[in-house]
């Protein structure tokens, strides 16, 4: 497929919309395990991104610059745990995008693989720690494996997002080991990790954006 700069911007716009829709849910998850602000934080961050998409990035065609701007804007607007994590992911993806205005299948797979590596490096969490890594690592591994084996990017993303979903749901029964809920011990069982949820939602929005491409 050909994923243009506009497609990329549209994807980020769709994330903005999804976050507004899901922010109360995300905050509710965070109230159980943390400080109740994950939805608020995501909303603040993505609203700031939205302003950039409507202004400075309106005519930007360089996918690297777009991704970097989104990263910096998000980080700058929110800080908190997810600022550095998502921003680092987006900056690594930005690097992969190689200043191109159109990304091909390989680019997209590498973008997201680099995204996940970036989040992992910044946060240092592993699968089983009850964080967004429980969503992102299965996603990334499935994505890379599937694409390597089949060469089919769409299908690879589809499987990967399914793995992401299962990863997110697995956080329900995990004992938290990182972040605010890691201090809960046994009490951290029974609720989905908020970051794992937001990561899954973002990935599934991306999957939707690929699928809608294919209708052209």
């Amino acid at each position, binding site marked *: 497929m050909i994923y243009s700069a506009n497609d990329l911007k549209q994807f980020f716009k769709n994330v903005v919309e999804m976050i507004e829709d899901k922010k109360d849910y995300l905050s509710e998850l965070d*109230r159980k395990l943390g*400080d*109740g602000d994950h*939805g608020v934080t995501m909303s603040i961050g993505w609203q700031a991104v939205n302003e950039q998409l409507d202004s400075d990035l309106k005519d930007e065609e360089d996918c690297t610059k777009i991704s970097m701007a989104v990263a910096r804007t998000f980080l700058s607007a929110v*800080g908190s745990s*997810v*600022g*550095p994590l998502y921003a680092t992911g987006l900056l690594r993806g930005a690097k992969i995008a190689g200043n191109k205005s159109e990304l091909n299948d390989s680019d997209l797979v590498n973008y997201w693989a680099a995204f996940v590596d970036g989040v992992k490096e910044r946060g240092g969490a592993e699968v089983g720690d009850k964080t967004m890594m429980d969503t992102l690592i299965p996603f990334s591994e499935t994505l890379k494996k599937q694409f390597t084996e089949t060469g089919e990017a769409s299908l690879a993303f589809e499987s990967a997002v399914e793995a992401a979903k299962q990863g997110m749901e697995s956080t329900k029964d995990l004992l938290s080991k990182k972040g605010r809920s890691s201090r809960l011990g046994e009490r951290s069982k029974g609720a989905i990790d908020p970051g794992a949820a937001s990561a899954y939602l973002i990935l599934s929005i991306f999957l939707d954006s690929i699928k809608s491409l294919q209708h052209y």
Partner: protein
Amino acid sequence: MKKLMNDPTNVVDEMIDGYLKAHPTYIQQSPKNSRTIVTVRETKPGKVGVVIGGGSGHEPGFMGYVGDGMADGVAIGNIFASPSPDPILEAAKLVDKGSGVVILHGNYAGDVMNFGMAKELAEMEDIRVETVLTTDDVASAPKEESEKRRGIAGEFFGFKTAGAAADKGYHLDDVVRVAKKTNENTRSMGVGLSPCSLPQTGEPSFVLEENEMEIGLGHHGEPGIEKGQIQSADQVADRLLNDILADMPLEKGDNVAVLVNGLGSTTRMELYIMFRRVEQVLKEKGVKIHRSYVGDYMTSLEMGGCSITLMKLDEELAELIDYPADCPMFVQK
């Protein structure tokens, strides 16, 4: 939960605006970053800069502690959210007088990452930065993993001693030494009675029954270690002290500073009733209270509850605790 505010999305920036307008003889905002506030007052040439910061919602912490004898600058995050690296870096730049900057922050995932990134950026600009964490909350991890502990009200003592040390002209390494020694000698534990709510959601941060309390609640509303029937003030104080003293035993003749900190809606009456028991327990043990602080020092919006902090003092720390301070939300002669 009702609040006096305008658009909830603007609470932090409006609070900062009001704060700057209220105390222009103390503080100013960076023209480059609206979340960086620094002292307006001349500090001594070559003074080590002290930067503090964290999420808002804890006022007086953190922005209230910029002033003489405390911090020179603060980076202000969204409510219960670490500031991003930019305002932290900007604060470090503004307070650096060539002798380096000490940055004090809590041990939360967000703080560690954002302050860490800021430190890297500062070093790329040739500012010597050292960071010191506060890990005083004994409820948040066992002794064997104390480096994982949260920073709660004990951060106030870190600001006090590091700020005093810097004002006395200590070199960077000694300010760091003092801050670390403070942290090693400070233990806290809290109890929650009633929730706070974020302006943007209006939802209570946690749920407790009418007769419940939660020991070890975090000061952002993070769940604690034990929910149970609410007990008397003396019983609660005994329990908090028990855990603190189990972790940092004190002996007859030891000298401490005490902080009984209100989380927001707990009255000073209750805080002094709690303090009364703390003093009884310490007196029984032959521990001398050098100085006491009772009030709202590190709140959690309108949360009900309080924390007890004990800091073991040697001669140096006692002197630094006694050192004067003058900030919009804290003055000591």
